[in-house]
């Protein structure tokens, strides 16, 4: 699909047309307060590295009420759970980073596939157009290229935006993105060469990532039974920080809560780091210690998701877990351990 350009002087007008008939969401706030918020077309910023938390909460909130009932016996339907439905309005996100867009595309295949469609996710996700902002200077914490992505990656995006001096370049990726940009005053321009050069420079600035192909090649059970997991998990606190901040972690727990007038069924983020995540009604826990729980997280990211999603890794290299982990467990180090040849005694 073609590229477009918006001159600096026309940016506010451009964002105004993006926001016509939709909510415009862009990163606002600094540091740990930086998050995607509804924004006026004149308030769009380019000076952030990334949002503190991943954008998954827009489509998969930490707490989401799914259905409710009332206990008013004078009405016809007491104690019957009714779907709370989907009240999301159409939106456009501008400024999502390619790592996070890729994360959303991975979760989208979990919530919408040929076996299941999650209506709560779908209602919000399908109504949102995603315009990414390429990372010309990736943060020190970033390693998207090592995970098979790119600071200029297109996965999960409808449009990729990138700075051309003070102007804004745009590359449309999906028909929805093309349609969106055509509604604006952006003019078509040949920026393919510019885009390629920018991407090469940004990838180079991340340094050479480790080749993770050995993980793809190794047998699942060999990886699973590798003795390194005990040491790898030893300093883990089993808190939920990595999973809550991860753009691709999507596990949840269903809870029923009652009040005097009725009740709700909600889903809340859950975390495989917690022993409660897997404990059975019998009291038996198939992941009894943190070794099994830590193994689950990294196997899921680096082996199970690639197996289920045509080789796409479940880690997008956003670096949040590395920086936010209270004890600095680094998925890159864990991946290296998973790449190591098996010790002879284990062969």
């Amino acid at each position, binding site marked *: 699909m073609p590229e477009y350009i918006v001159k600096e002087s026309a940016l506010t007008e451009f964002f105004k047309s993006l926001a016509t008939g939709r909510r415009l969401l862009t990163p606002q706030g*600094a*540091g*740990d307060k930086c998050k995607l918020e509804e924004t006026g077309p004149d308030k769009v910023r380019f000076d952030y*590295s990334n949002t*503190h938390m991943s954008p998954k909460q827009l489509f998969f909130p*930490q*707490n989401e009420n799914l259905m409710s009932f009332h206990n008013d016996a004078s009405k016809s339907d007491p104690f019957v759970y009714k779907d709370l439905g989907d009240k999301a309005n159409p939106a456009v996100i501008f400024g999502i980073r390619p790592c996070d867009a890729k994360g959303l595309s991975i979760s989208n295949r979990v919530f919408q596939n040929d076996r299941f469609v999650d209506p709560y996710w779908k209602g919000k996700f399908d109504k949102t157009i995603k315009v990414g902002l390429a990372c010309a*200077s990736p*943060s*020190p*914490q970033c390693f998207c290229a090592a995970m098979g992505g790119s600071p200029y990656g297109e996965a999960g995006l409808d449009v990729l935006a990138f700075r051309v001096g003070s102007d804004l370049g745009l590359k449309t990726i999906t028909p929805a993105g093309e349609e969106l940009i055509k509604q604006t005053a952006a003019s078509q321009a040949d920026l393919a060469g510019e885009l390629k050069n920018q991407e090469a420079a940004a990838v180079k600035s991340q340094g050479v990532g480790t080749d993770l192909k050995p993980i793809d090649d190794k047998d699942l059970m060999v990886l699973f039974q590798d003795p390194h997991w005990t*040491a790898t998990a*030893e*300093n883990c*606190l*089993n*808190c*939920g*920080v990595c999973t*809550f*901040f991860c753009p691709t972690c999507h596990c949840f*727990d269903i*809870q029923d*809560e009652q009040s005097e007038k009725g009740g709700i069924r*909600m889903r*809340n983020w859950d*975390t495989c780091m*917690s*022993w*409660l995540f897997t*404990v059975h009604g019998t009291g038996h826990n198939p992941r009894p210690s943190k070794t099994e729980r830590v193994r689950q997280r990294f196997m899921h990211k680096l082996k199970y998701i690639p197996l289920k999603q045509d080789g796409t890794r479940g880690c997008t290299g956003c*670096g949040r877990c*590395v*920086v*936010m982990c*209270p*004890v*600095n*467990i*680094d998925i*890159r*180090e864990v991946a290296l351990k998973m790449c190591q040849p098996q010790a002879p005694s284990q062969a």
Partner: protein
Amino acid sequence: MPALSDITSKIRESAKKLLADGRAEVVIGYRQGTVPLTTSPFFARSAADCDQLVWSNFSRINLANYLPGRPGKVALVAKGCDARSAIGQVTENQILKDNLYIIGVPCTGMIDTNLVVAKETRPIKEVVESTDDAITVKGEGFSTDIKKTDVLRRNCQTCANRTPKLADELIGAETPGAAPDDFSDIKALLAKTPAERMAYFKDLIKDCLRCYACRNACPLCYCPICFVDETRPQWLGKSNDPMDTLTFHLLRGLHCSGRCTSCGACETACPVNIKVREFNRVTELTVQNNWNYEAGLNWDQKPPLTMFQTDDPADFIK
């Protein structure tokens, strides 16, 4: 005050000796983090492992957290607060004193990454800790010196017990404590109405994700099953409902009464920068006022709220 590199080499030396002598099977210390402004807890079991141990301005997480229930002989690299936590765990029968060896490091306070990032907002790629009282942070086209006293963690600014005096050995000379917490803000808070206090604490935790990093980083939170994880019956809702979330923090705060050593691990671990210690500071002030007690300052004294005495002056308990 010896340089950080001297402390590092002395820790390594001591750790190697303890492993070689069979005094410890594992030495729990810190190694360099993989990103700037961090360290990572590290378990050294061989001489080669010991060469990875470091001491830095970012040795923040309280390693006593790894002690409860740990079998075998263990050596712990500990700041003043960490040693107090370990001693508290001995008095609470979580680990045998005979199995514990404390490598005490007289501390000068640890640095709060958030304060560093607030001072230098550009992406930091490297930290140099060459002098005792300052760090240099570097990135694309900048190199900024930051005075350590300007970026100390809140708890370190008011730490009167920086030297772990009850440790089995001290790495270097004792360091002077800071002026202790005067609790003036907490006293002002306690003078307010219940409604105002409720509003304060609700606002304090409004960003809480219930990831439980505070609890899991806390050396006092060693319950096999935390009350928030109980399912038979379930005591607490699981969402971020303000009352459920506040109940978690209030009960955790109360449960730590008279046991907290202000190590700040909870605040260091919190990913959304909640001042978790505010709950503990209220209970610590209360315990100090009522029983003149501070945790972890000797091997024998039990936390007052775990004790019963027939001559207790309070009427309700008789």
